[in-house]
């Protein structure tokens, strides 16, 4: 036996690795060390899904997002619908009514025109469904091998028509944490399609626009403190970020959270935590405690958030904890990098 000197030391890479793209702490570290430092300004520092800027008495929200999903078509959606839903949702999470979208598309030499037409059609259909026009765009073609079929970047502009200041820093101890539905379907649907995995029952992505349930909360006069869609890194990432920004603790009740049995099974097999798996049609709403029951009723009355649950509450302290299925407490961590199946 030797001493313990040869343990596995994680290295800080000089190259960007795929782990930097997982939406976890490594993504944060990369962005902090590069773009956030370079662009530093108050709107960016709010660490929200989009930026809200007041101009001439109007609060304008804007957001931008790149979409590189593989496969381009997956159960429950495709790259086009995903891009439009994601942009609408980022605006909705600012409490902003979406007004318009622009899109930049990068095509790889050799991609089928039929596929490009399909993506254009599903972008148009997704935008039309929420009454938001796609008003400008840009198309570039790169050499074969320099892209992965189709990449789409969308930018959205919206307007806040209510007096609330919705952002993580507004979250205070006592607030209620609502989650708009079951967790993990998008991530498992895409992973299954990508890797050719077959699980019991077809798992379709939850990708959908979330402006309607957010609008319902605002119209009902709910005191909304923060909204966050549960995309890369899942519910865990969203809540860990909010807790860190607001300097509060968040206590989840795991039994309250819904996970489809097929998603649950896939997560068990792959060694994934459903709290870490991506969603594209789910969000967390953190509201004033006294409005919790009414907010839940309002959400459940909408098609998009019919499965909403009261998932937990905000307390003083730090970090996110969860009451487990057997009644103990565990710390909920942000996923570190990509969601990959574990060996054991």
């Amino acid at each position, binding site marked *: 036996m030797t001493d313990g000197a040869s343990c596995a030391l994680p*290295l800080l890479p000089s190259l960007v690795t795929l782990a930097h793209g997982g939406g976890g702490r490594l993504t944060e570290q990369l962005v902090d060390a590069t773009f956030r430092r370079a662009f530093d300004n108050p709107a960016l520092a709010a660490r929200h899904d989009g930026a809200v800027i007041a101009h001439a008495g109007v609060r304008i929200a804007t957001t931008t997002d790149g979409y590189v999903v593989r496969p381009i078509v997956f159960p429950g959606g495709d790259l086009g619908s995903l891009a439009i839903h994601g942009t609408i949702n980022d605006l909705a999470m600012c409490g902003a009514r979406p007004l318009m979208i622009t899109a930049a598309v990068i095509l790889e030499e050799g991609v089928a025109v039929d596929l490009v037409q399909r993506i254009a059609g599903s972008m148009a259909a997704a935008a039309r469904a929420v009454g938001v026009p796609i008003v400008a765009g840009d198309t570039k073609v790169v050499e074969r091998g320099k892209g992965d079929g189709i990449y789409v970047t969308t930018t959205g502009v919206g307007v806040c028509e209510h007096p609330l200041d919705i952002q993580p820093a507004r979250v205070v101890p006592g607030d209620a944490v609502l989650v708009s539905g079951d967790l993990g379907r998008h991530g498992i649907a895409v992973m299954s399609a990508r890797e050719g995995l077959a699980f019991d029952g077809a798992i379709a992505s939850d990708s959908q626009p979330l402006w309607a349930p957010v609008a319902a909360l605002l119209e009902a006069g709910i005191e909304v403190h923060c909204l966050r869609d549960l995309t890369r890194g899942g519910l865990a990432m969203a809540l860990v970020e909010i807790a860190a920004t607001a300097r509060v603790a968040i206590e989840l009740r795991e039994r309250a959270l819904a996970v489809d049995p097929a998603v649950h099974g896939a997560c068990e097999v792959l060694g994934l935590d459903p709290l870490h798996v991506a969603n594209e049609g789910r969000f967390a709403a953190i509201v004033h405690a006294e409005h919790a029951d009414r907010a839940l009723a309002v959400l459940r009355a909408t098609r998009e958030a019919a499965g909403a649950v009261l998932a937990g509450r905000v307390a003083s302290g730090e970090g996110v904890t969860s009451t487990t299925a*057997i*009644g103990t407490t565990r*710390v909920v961590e942000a996923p570190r*990098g990509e969601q990959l199946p574990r060996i054991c």
Partner: protein
Amino acid sequence: MKYVDEFRDPGAARRLADDIARTTTRPWRVMEVCGGQTHAIVRYGLAELLPPTLELIHGPGCPVCVTPAAILDLAHDLAARPGVVLCTFGDMLRVPGTRTDLYGVKAAGGDVRVVYGPLDALHIAEAHPDRDVVFLAVGFETTAPANAMAVYQARQRGIGNFSMLVSHVLVPPALEALLAPSDRRLDGLLAAGHVCSVMGLDEYRPLAARHAVPIVVTGFEPLDILQGVAMCVRQLEAGRHEVENQYARAVAPDGNHHARALIREVFEVVDRDWRGIGEIAASGLGLRAAYADHDALRRFGPAPRVAAPATECLSGLVLQGRLRPTECPAFGTRCTPDRPLGAPMVSNEGACAAYYHHRRAAR
């Protein structure tokens, strides 16, 4: 979910915890051998349910943690070669050798692919006859049958461009090494259920007898682990040291004959270096000479001799249950999950990360 939710029932967990508390009259240190059990203990906060005098020690059963740097360095060299496709399980990507990790090799242009099993790698080899496809095979006895099957099929079907870089380890020799020192700091063992579903119980009986230590073969759900602990504590309190099987729904006393025959056909027992622990005689599996054509170590090796990098990390002692993570001078200060000095602080399954998180939760 059927066959899972039954083993996560809060009422039954409470009853088992009460049973353990009633039985325990003295301080005991029980080691769970497998990283999967450590994961469940942390995931379900099981330590919270146990009396304070009963300490769970996390064992060496994390194949990712114990894979030696020399094998990883060879894997990284191979992955960087043009014409080579390196396939492995997802959690091997972040494990560093002495210079880089597979994420880094991939970012620099290496062809690294995450697969869900060794047969996927075999299919890649079939689909790309012009490439050398190497599967990095790590793990305990549990994953050995599937890996053996992939090599066996490669030979049967003449898939000459498929090879395996084998770093398999065996549980009983590692337990022997942990139990032998006279100053050992553990009283009972929870053996890894899945390993025993292949190997059976027989290898564990001499260990229990020779070292006077109770060994309970245990599953991976919260109630499995609590029941395993309860059985272990009952033995300790009664002064018994037997091999018992908590995980009888998956483990037959004599294991799985077919799987073991396949392992014997393809693999032979070899000496193996355990990262952080050192070389343990006859503690690993390597490919037999008959399968040399599919042995990446013979085709591309030998693995480079590497000096252990100088670090403050004492994970080797932690993995042997000889040092509590909180006793490490770097714990929670210079070493945290965000800035880890060693593998056990990296993942939620790691012993150091487990202690770190539990302490935070308790606070």
